[in-house]
């Protein structure tokens, strides 16, 4: 691997982790689409700040853009609070309007500048190593420096306010009762999302910021019930998507950001299908197992009901199961086989007898 290859992967991984961490809270707080809105409207922030500052190099651009993210969130809240439209419609109204404004401003007044709407939407990671910065005598890519700073900020914020974020996310009412302002936490989090989106769009483009914020976090949500673990998993899955996406892009000679989003989607799909506890496959297998367990329990209860009664001779036979429990002959045979193998039932010349463990099974089912 050449230096620039390593650098690109490093930038991609840092971007992925920086996006995944606030993404976890977006997913948990059901505000995933806010990332979509913010990542679009930062364009307007950049345009407006550019008009004010007059330079595309100024570090103020990041703050201007992040401020526009907060403006977007406030406008959505404001519109939502009027009760005239629901929150999703509010998002769908605000961000296209602000984005359109930005596109028009650019095409009307900033035509000559290096500022294209599509550049913001798509990004290009492959060129990132060419834009370098000297820090302490070391030459590192500018976006690596910026994104590392943002990643540090995210980690710092989440570690410092972990308890508060956790409480406000899972029980906003209790958080408010403890004197933590849910609005303050909401806006702090949205500010974090805005800054991250601004920093990341340069590398991966704004639409793919959404992919890196939501997909790894959602995948992690399917894998664990523990917030700390979810944060760690989301970061890990983000790195896998980023590095995997890079190599996919190399393999296909295709756009890196697009490939990273594709990998993020695949990672989510894997979690959706194969998560040990919540995946589709695990779910189907659990349902299958429960079917047989239920049948065995029914069998045990049936046998216990008729044990030591005069009718036992008739009731406790294989043929009778078809009659009484309405089981098909093949199904009854299979249930019996499984029950015998588990040691719940014994077969004594045609009639069925419960073992001790079979009786325990039936009793447990009854008590419950």
């Amino acid at each position, binding site marked *: 691997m050449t230096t620039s290859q390593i650098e690109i992967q490093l930038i991609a991984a840092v971007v992925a982790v920086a996006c995944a961490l606030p993404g976890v809270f977006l*997913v948990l707080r059901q505000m995933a689409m806010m990332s979509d809105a913010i990542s679009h409207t930062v364009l307007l922030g950049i345009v407006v700040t550019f008009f004010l500052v007059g330079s595309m190099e100024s570090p103020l651009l990041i703050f201007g853009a992040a401020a526009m993210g907060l403006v977007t969130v406030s406008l959505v809240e404001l519109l939502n609070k009027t009760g005239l439209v629901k929150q999703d419609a509010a998002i769908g109204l605000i961000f296209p309007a602000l984005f*359109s404004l930005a596109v028009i401003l650019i095409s009307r007044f900033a035509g000559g500048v290096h500022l294209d709407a*599509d550049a913001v939407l798509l990004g290009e990671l492959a060129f990132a190593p060419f834009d370098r910065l000297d820090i302490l005598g070391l030459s590192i890519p500018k976006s690596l420096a910026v994104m590392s700073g943002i990643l540090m900020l995210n980690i710092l914020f989440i570690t410092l306010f972990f308890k508060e974020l956790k409480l406000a996310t899972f029980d906003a009412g209790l958080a408010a009762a403890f004197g933590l302002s849910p609005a303050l936490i909401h806006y702090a989090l949205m500010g974090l999302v805005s800054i991250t989106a601004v920093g990341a769009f340069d590398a991966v483009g704004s639409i793919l910021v*959404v992919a890196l914020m939501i997909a790894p976090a959602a995948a992690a949500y399917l894998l664990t019930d523990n917030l700390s673990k979810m944060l760690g998993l989301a970061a890990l899955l983000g790195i896998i998507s980023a590095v995997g996406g890079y190599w996919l892009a190399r393999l296909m000679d*295709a*756009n890196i950001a697009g490939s990273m989003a*594709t990998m993020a*989607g695949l990672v989510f799909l894997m979690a*959706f299908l194969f998560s040990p506890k919540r995946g589709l496959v695990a779910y189907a297998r659990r349902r299958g197992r429960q079917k047989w367990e239920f049948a065995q329990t029914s069998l045990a209860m049936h046998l216990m009901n008729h044990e030591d009664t005069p009718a036992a001779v008739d009731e406790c036979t294989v043929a009778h199961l078809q009659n009484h429990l309405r089981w098909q002959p093949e199904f009854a045979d299979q249930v019996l086989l499984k029950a015998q193998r588990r040691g719940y039932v014994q077969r004594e010349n045609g009639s069925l007898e419960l073992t001790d463990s079979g009786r325990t099974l039936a009793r447990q089912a009854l008590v419950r």
Partner: protein
Amino acid sequence: MELFNDLLFDYTLRTVALGAATLGLVSGALGSFALLRRQSLLGDAMSHAALPGVVLAFMITGSKSPLVLMLGAAVAGILGTLLMMAVTRHSRIKGDSALGIVLSVFFGFGLMLLTFLQRNPDARQAGLNTFLFGQAATLLERDVITMAMFGGGALLLMVIFWKELKLLSFDVDFGASLGFSMRLLDILLTSLLVVAIVIGLQAVGVVLMSAMIVAPAAAARQWTDRLSLMIVLAALFGAIAGVSGAMISSLGSGLSTGPLVVLAISAIALLSFLLAPNRGLVWNWLQRRRSDQNLRVRAVLSNLYFLAQQHDNPEHAHEATVLQTMAFGRFGIQKSLAVLTDLGWVQQVDQDRWALTPAGAEEAERYLIGG
């Protein structure tokens, strides 16, 4: 006037305006259902999800004809929506996350395919601009005819399944209890929405298509509580925004139609939020002001009545300063007295004293005691 002349006789402007109007009409009408079902952002996700469909359609057929590309876009859009439904049905992932994932992953996949196809990993040169922002200026008459045909077909289906779609939007459980398959209807409505989106992609592009689904419907919702009227209004607003966007775009240089159409429809929505009767913010503010004033007038009337009751004479006069101390809030009572005088319920006895008239005493009794 020249602008309107151009609208009728200038080929480009006429075509663009007609195309934008068709798009606004169809997406406004069908977007109403999405808004009512709280699926406003579905349009956003669908339009982004269309990209891989467009690229794959081209890869498979090698044709760049709008019809083929539109078909590919539609298939990808529907597939994306079905995936979204599957994820929310079978896992604890909520709708917003599912939307975000489908939107960004499909789009990223499309981007990857497109750059792979062109053997050029630089997305900026991939000709994505058209897809992202639309290119209304390149619309041809036959494109508009295609748009109108598909849009008309979608609207026709909407009318045929009117009753069922209404059930789907307002009471899913009741619909299911009547024996309708709500899942099939959901898929039908989704497909109609996909048609609306796909015919708009060429005109306004992916990013702004979501606004054409949400904004006309949100604006129309403010003016009425009837679904049929709402849909007609939404279609009308969408069409107006389309035509005005196209016209403004023809005026200035470098202004593309898509963003202008979106700004036009956003302005219509904003005006509706402010001015619509019953729901609008300004309307509500005026209502509240009127009822507050009414309350103050009633209070002055009642106070005069209470004061007079202590004097055996219901028409006993009292000084305005007394009434002022009894009034609530920081408001003066002069205006209330003027209103009451106009109504003939109160009269000014001398310089500073006021008394109830017989009609005023009667009114106060009716108001306070009832009957």
